[in-house]
């Protein structure tokens, strides 16, 4: 017996793509989607698009030069091509967002759903108090301390950011589970003998996904800023790695003599975070069209 129904079986043709059409009608959301698509493409094809190796092509006769035919965005303090480093930087930023938010999602959602579904002592006095305690730490300070504890480096920094983001996902997933657990279809599933895991997996999780996806989209932008911030401080990517944050770290020393060095990475971070924010707004509007009326 399969008590679940695929919504495509019951929805008329006109209603199937209503969300997609609503999203497509929002021009700002489309711009966001376009920026993120571009980021993904650049991240994938960086080795083919780059004109130089981002780390090892060092032109010592051409340090801190302005844009020219050979170096479209100029060179940095070691004569490396900034354009190529910017392209590879997209890879690092995308990885940062996926690792940190993926980890936060994988930790936060199962704990939050189980906590809200079962309720009781563990929910009230263990999970929620721990979430309160973790949310008492400013997330960047927690990430800094955790990154230091884990030994620094890009992957450790992103794990630290992911752990810092997890409490927000726990809280949100728990809230969703609390509001869904007593709805009729959950009761119906329980009455036909569905087990706890099946109820959480098949009935609560899919119906709790919308706000979680929105939260994940916004968190991607925050993760990119956190990676750049930690790399800027020297606790994320290594200084030679083409992370946009590391590039800002180098640029800080040349604000007097060569301010354009700081311009490109900053604009790139801004554009990508803007993309995720616009995309998040767009998805939110699809699920809650009253919001911006």
């Amino acid at each position: 017996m399969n008590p679940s129904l695929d919504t495509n079986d019951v929805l008329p043709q006109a209603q199937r793509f209503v969300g997609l059409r609503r999203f497509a009608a929002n021009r700002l959301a489309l711009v966001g989607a376009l920026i993120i698509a571009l980021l993904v493409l650049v991240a994938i094809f960086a080795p083919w698009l780059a004109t130089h190796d981002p780390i090892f092509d060092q032109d010592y006769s051409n340090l801190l030069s302005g844009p020219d035919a050979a170096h479209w965005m100029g060179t940095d303090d070691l004569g490396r091509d900034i354009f190529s480093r910017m392209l590879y930087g997209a890879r690092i930023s995308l990885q940062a967002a996926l690792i940190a938010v993926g980890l936060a999602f994988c930790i936060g959602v199962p704990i939050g759903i189980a906590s809200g579904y079962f309720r009781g002592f563990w929910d009230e006095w263990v999970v929620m108090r721990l979430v309160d305690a973790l949310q008492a730490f400013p997330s960047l300070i927690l990430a800094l301390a955790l990154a230091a504890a884990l030994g620094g480096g890009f992957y450790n920094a992103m794990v630290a950011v992911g752990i810092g983001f997890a409490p927000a996902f726990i809280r949100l997933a728990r809230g969703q589970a609390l509001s869904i657990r007593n709805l009729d279809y959950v009761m119906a599933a329980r009455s036909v003998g569905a087990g706890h895991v099946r109820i959480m997996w098949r009935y609560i999780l899919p119906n709790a996904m919308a706000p979680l996806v929105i939260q994940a989209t916004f968190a991607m932008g925050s993760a990119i800023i956190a990676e750049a911030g930690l790399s800027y401080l020297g606790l994320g990517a290594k200084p030679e790695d083409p992370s946009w944050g590391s590039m800002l770290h180098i640029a800080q020393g040349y604000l007097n003599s060569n301010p354009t060095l700081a311009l490109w990475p900053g604009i790139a971070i801004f554009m990508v975070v803007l993309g995720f924010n616009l995309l998040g707004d767009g998805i939110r509007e699809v699920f809650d069209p009253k919001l911006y009326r």
Partner: protein
Amino acid sequence: MPALFPSFLAPLLKRLLLVIPTLLLVSMVIFSLLAILPGDPVSAILGQEATPEAALALRAQLGLDDPIYVQYGHWLMGVLHGDLGRSFIDRTPVLDSLMQRLPVTIELALGSFVVAILIAVPAGIMAAARPRGAVSYFSTLVALFGMSVPHFWLGMMFIVLFAVKLGWLPASGYVPFTEDWHGNLLAMIMPMVATGLRESAILMRMVRSSLLEVLNEDYIRTAFSKGLKDWQVVFGHALRNALIPVVTASGLMVSGLLGGLVITESIFGIPGMGKMIVDAIFQRDYVMVQGGVLAAALMVVLVNLVVDVLYVIIDPRIAK
């Protein structure tokens, strides 16, 4: 009348009681951080050349041979008595360093908060009063910009524009307010605006949506039907109710502000608590890191507690 007090105090008492387990867990998280940090405090204090006997003696003296829960108990008792330990590097008490750095960070955080409020509240009100107007679209765009721009990059761009190109403001450095208030403000204005702008964007969206929601209520329609002008309705009737969720958001903002200030202080060379934590991480001075993180978490918990109290005072319906 006397019955009002228990109902008014009940949610506050519950909130106060919930702070205790939260603080205990905060202390456990911070203690665990030090326990898992790489490096041995004994070799950090004595150096690599220390004899095994001296290392053993110091381990016993520091209580590092005790079981972990005993160490936690000692540490917690020390913290409760104001003893946060001594720096591994120069042996100064962590509390003294914190007391030196904290006023700088508090000034910066308060300034950034004021910047955020000064931008967010008027912009949010104007955007909500005319939701389809040019001001609304403009402020929505500014909010999107503020939420997306990395504040540390904005700080760097401010340095390039206002310090390097125009020469109006110092690029970095800090002068205490008590020594030279004018110099202090000049040094603090760029970091305050850079950090406050992002928070103002979040707050502005909240003021706008909250006010829009309140403006759809029946009592607002009644106010309009009495012939009141737009501004009389907004300021006299709607704003107080609309600002209730904004007060809560302001409490949550403290966490974002303190996190943001870590990088801001490093960019502008401001000797606050954030820079202390970053410097301590690079010097592997983990007791100092622990003290800084504890102070930041305590500030967030206390501010949110104050906000919860304010919340009950502003909106007595919550107590019912």
